[in-house]
């Protein structure tokens, strides 16, 4: 067999090393996939409720028509859902301006024994859609039509 050029030897060695490295990193990330999540979705909270004194984050969509403000004016109740499970949430404080019904939210707090999530902080989750104000009065279907037409 002809001697391998050092250049080619380095190339092969480096490619093998890189492939091994990438595979190791991907495996590590795969192992982390539940721990590295920033929040639990409602179906995870319902299936496996956290202990009452453990601080967790709950993330999902604010159900349309579910936001109610209580008599004191600062406490609000709403329902966070993910399509399969729903968790009622109570929050006292100032909500971010992007916190609206039908939009994503991350609530930080604890799950009370009655199944209500007591949030002490709300983060609005912005989705990947960027749409100008002129299109906001149309419903979602119309918007997607307009966007599809102009692309």
């Amino acid at each position, binding site marked *: 067999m002809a001697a391998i050029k050092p*250049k080619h030897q*380095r*190339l092969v060695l*480096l490619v093998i090393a*890189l492939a091994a*490295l*990438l595979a190791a*990193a*991907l495996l590590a*990330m795969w192992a*982390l*996939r539940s721990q*590295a*999540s*920033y*929040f*639990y*979705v409602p179906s995870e909270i319902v299936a496996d409720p956290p202990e009452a004194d453990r601080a967790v984050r709950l*993330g999902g969509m604010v159900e349309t028509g579910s936001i109610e403000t209580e008599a004191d004016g600062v406490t609000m109740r709403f329902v966070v859902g993910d399509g399969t499970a729903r968790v009622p949430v109570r929050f006292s404080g100032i*909500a*971010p*301006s*992007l*916190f*609206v019904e039908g*939009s994503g939210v*991350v609530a930080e707090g604890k799950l009370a024994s009655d199944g209500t999530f007591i949030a002490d*902080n*709300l*983060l*609005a*989750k*912005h*989705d*990947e*859609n*960027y*749409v*100008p*104000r*002129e*299109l*906001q009065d149309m419903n979602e279907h119309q918007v997607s039509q307009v*966007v599809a037409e*102009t*692309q």
Partner: protein
Amino acid sequence: MHGFANPARFLRIARWLMPLLLASGVVLTASALAWGLFKVPPDRLMGDTVRILFIHVPAAWLGMAGWMAIAGASFAELVWRHPLAGIAARAAAVPGATFTAICLATGSIWGRPTWGTWWVWDGRLTSMLVLLFLYLGYKALADASSRDGGNGRVAAVFGLVGAVNIPIIHYSVLWWNSLHQPPSISLGKSAIDPAFLWPLMVATLGFSLIFGGVVLARMRAILADIQAEARLRRKAMAEPSGELANA
């Protein structure tokens, strides 16, 4: 391929390519930002906050592309021993780190009104911060090895290993629940309205041209440094009793 690795030929090309890239990049970026800041309509939810997109997204892309450039050049340096590849990798570190820092800063400013927080430790934000630290570590390592007369191979290995973070940044919003939104632009389709998309594309192109120009400028500076050092060394050898011999 080795034709491009000839420093003299590279310098001849870089001499006119660098100002060309910088000038066209500045013109494109300035017009895209003017368009994005004054002409584009406000977003339906975010209002005027959406305008930070035109700096944030190109900065994020270049922060990641900068490391891919370091990794690619490091690969070429290790395998083919290109004389210019190591210099190119070192030249990409500072602009890459700068754009990563801009991405983190603008993202934080955007996050306060939009999410209601300056910073969260979710997958995307954390992996982007790790990228900034990787840049700083790479820069320190590359500088140290070139000062001590090393061949820069340690820095090249670091550049390759660090590239593992790039797919993690990209997939962080898909693998893990995160506060950061998933990618808006994937191959062939975009969830960004064309009113925002076009200035974003132009700004990205403009910033990329500036990035290329800065890398070429830094490569020329590093080559000039190496030349000056070699000249000093020759001079010191020629007159051993002179001051330079003690330096």
